[in-house]
């Protein structure tokens, strides 16, 4: 084999290796798993009651969690994981003195800071169809793609939804689509309490019995 042939063969091997790596990714190889650590900061995007409920779920899961309905960028720096609970409430936004545009602006700053600090984000949508609508969907389409994990109360693709139809927050597959497009792991729950098991798993919480 002369030098020229060898060079071509090496180039070919490099090309094949590169193509193989790309093919592996395109075939849905698992993205690098995000590690969720504590302490956790829980906040709302949209000012619905979801974040306050997420605090209850976090406590039941045994997490070291702090809840602030509308947190600040400065507060974020003390935490290892950010949980944002998505859902617009006109009552909540009014009480906070903001409109949806102001809420989006504030949340954008928050998420950008989390990314900058390397703090992983869990986005939850746990109030079902009652938190779907123009404002809630704007929040979902803006911030779900930036999350590292999604927890959604709603129907899985190709699976029959057995609860009340109005409890299905994913009946149009919005969150399924967002997860697929962003290659974001997603957990579907049928009841709000089910989120406890998801949190236990992704935070790697063990009990004394285990």
């Amino acid at each position, binding site marked *: 084999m002369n030098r020229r042939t060898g060079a071509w063969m090496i180039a070919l091997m490099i090309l094949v290796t590169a193509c193989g790596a790309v093919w592996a990714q395109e075939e849905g190889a698992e993205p690098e798993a995000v590690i969720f650590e504590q302490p956790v900061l829980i906040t709302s995007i949209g000012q619905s*009651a979801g974040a306050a*409920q997420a605090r*209850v*779920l976090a406590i039941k899961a045994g997490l070291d969690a702090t809840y602030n309905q509308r947190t600040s960028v400065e507060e974020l720096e003390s935490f290892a994981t950010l949980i944002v609970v998505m859902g617009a409430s006109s009552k909540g936004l009014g009480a906070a003195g903001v409109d949806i545009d102001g809420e989006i602006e504030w949340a954008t700053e928050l998420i950008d800071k989390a990314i900058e600090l390397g703090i992983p984000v869990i986005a939850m949508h746990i109030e079902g169809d009652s938190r779907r609508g123009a404002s809630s969907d704007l929040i979902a389409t803006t911030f779900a793609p930036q999350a590292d994990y999604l927890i959604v109360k709603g129907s899985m693709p190709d699976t029959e939804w057995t609860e009340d139809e109005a*409890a299905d927050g994913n009946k149009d597959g919005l969150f399924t689509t967002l997860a697929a497009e962003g290659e974001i792991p997603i957990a579907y729950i049928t009841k709000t309490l089910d989120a406890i098991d998801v949190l236990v798993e992704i935070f790697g919480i063990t009990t004394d019995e285990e």
Partner: protein
Amino acid sequence: MKGRSKGRVLCCVGIAVVALVAWAGFAGQVETSTEGMVATAHQLASDAGAEILAAGGNAVDAAVAAAFAITVVEPNASSLGGEGYMVISLADGRDIAIDYRSWSPGHVTTDIIPGDYYYGAESTCIPGVVAGLALALEEYGTMTLAEVMAPAIRLAKEGFALDATLQSRISDAYDWMALDPVASEIYLPDGLIPELGALLVQSDLAHAFELIAEYGPSVFYRGEIALAIDEATEGFLGYTDLQRYAAVIREPVLSEYRGYEIIGTPPIVAGITVAETLNILDYFDMSQYTWSDVEAVHIMAEALKLGSADRMPYIGDPDFYDIPLEGLLSTEYAGARAGLIDMDSAMVPTKSVPAGNPEYVYLLQSYEPTNEVYSTSTTQLSILDEDGNAVSITQTISSFWGSRVMVEGYGFFINNELHNFNAYNPDNLGDVNVIGPYKRPRTVIAPTIVRDPDGEVYLVVGTPGAGRIPSTVVETIVNVIDFGMSLEDAIKAPKFCSRVSYSTLRMEAGYPQETLDALADLGHRLSTSYGELDLYFGGINAILVEDGVMTGVGSFRRDGGAAAP
């Protein structure tokens, strides 16, 4: 069958299925019968009333049953700790009003600024629901308290499936309810908002019902429940206050519109405003218009401003003030007021709508309307039996969940009516709604019954919706009588709100743009940020009778339901 034809058939079948599903969605909200009808804000409460009619009870029996039941299934809008007004029209010709409005406690003085206390013990007034419903039953019903309360006891004890409306109200209350161990034990199991369809059991409330069913209202106003209310409010509603309370039978306000008799509530609520407004409209030929014509909206808007302008100087607690009812209801006075309506220009509501002087039929100086704040947390019940006895009730605890004070062990919230008083103002010594001891605060509820020119019950109507109540009731009556609309269409038609204390004319979505433009050209300042079938404009539950057939309609804006025996 060829492919294209097969496609057309499948398309038609699909359309039919969709139409059937859409119709079925409203099936419980619209019912027809010749044997009686109940229309309320919740199907289960309507069913409770229908159950009593089926058992042989009359409209009053059914109304009391439904009124207790609604406190179970709509606890945010009505409770044993609330108040209300009932209008009864009996087949024997008697018309009655039962005032069970709440009273301020005896220790309040003009030093208290009502607006400072929106929630908590210091926002409460002595509740009237138990006294009022018991009085109605005793005087005009045929059954016992135990019999008519049985459906409510069953609902509270056995529970009912949580619906989306109540779940939403619990969600809205989550921030404070989660911090209240008494309320959260009932409404937030596991500390979370209950799932749709979850069984909501209210054992403490069932216990309270059972005590009332066995011992009567005395257990509420003089017995263990009174002591519990005293404790829950830390003495703000004292035991002696509760002992003193009594519901009152009054003469309803009677007026006539296009030959129909309007039976409404006397002061201190808004039956007088509805009557005045209709008296003014009687000077205009409204039948030449439709609900969406600019002329119709303009005339009604101006008439509502004039009717509401008279509330401030004249409408106070009738046990404390002499009210010129005869003058306010006179057709001569209405004619003078109607003469103020300019078809080419709108009156500016907060500045140029003077109250009248019903005694002399000339104008007073204009005044500054106070900024009245009323809550939307109210509920309407309409009942009619096959003998022609009719009952219209509007019942409330003021804000959703009232004062947020729950009576521990008895499972009900107490109202927060105190903020409906005006604070003492030395520059307005003639204020008939100033706070004082054992007084009723002024509100705008307006349960109404309409008899046709033959004297038969034609319409039973009312609505929640705070300041929108008089407008919505008037527009519904005009829609049916003047515009000839079906009850369903009359209720669904977009509504507007005009009153002297609102600086804008508030328009529900659905009015033609040319109407909105024309109203603006007349000088009306419009607020058009409301949606279609917007809850802001109330939730009418009503019954209409035509050719002997009763049509009951439960609110489209608030998931109401109708039921027949």
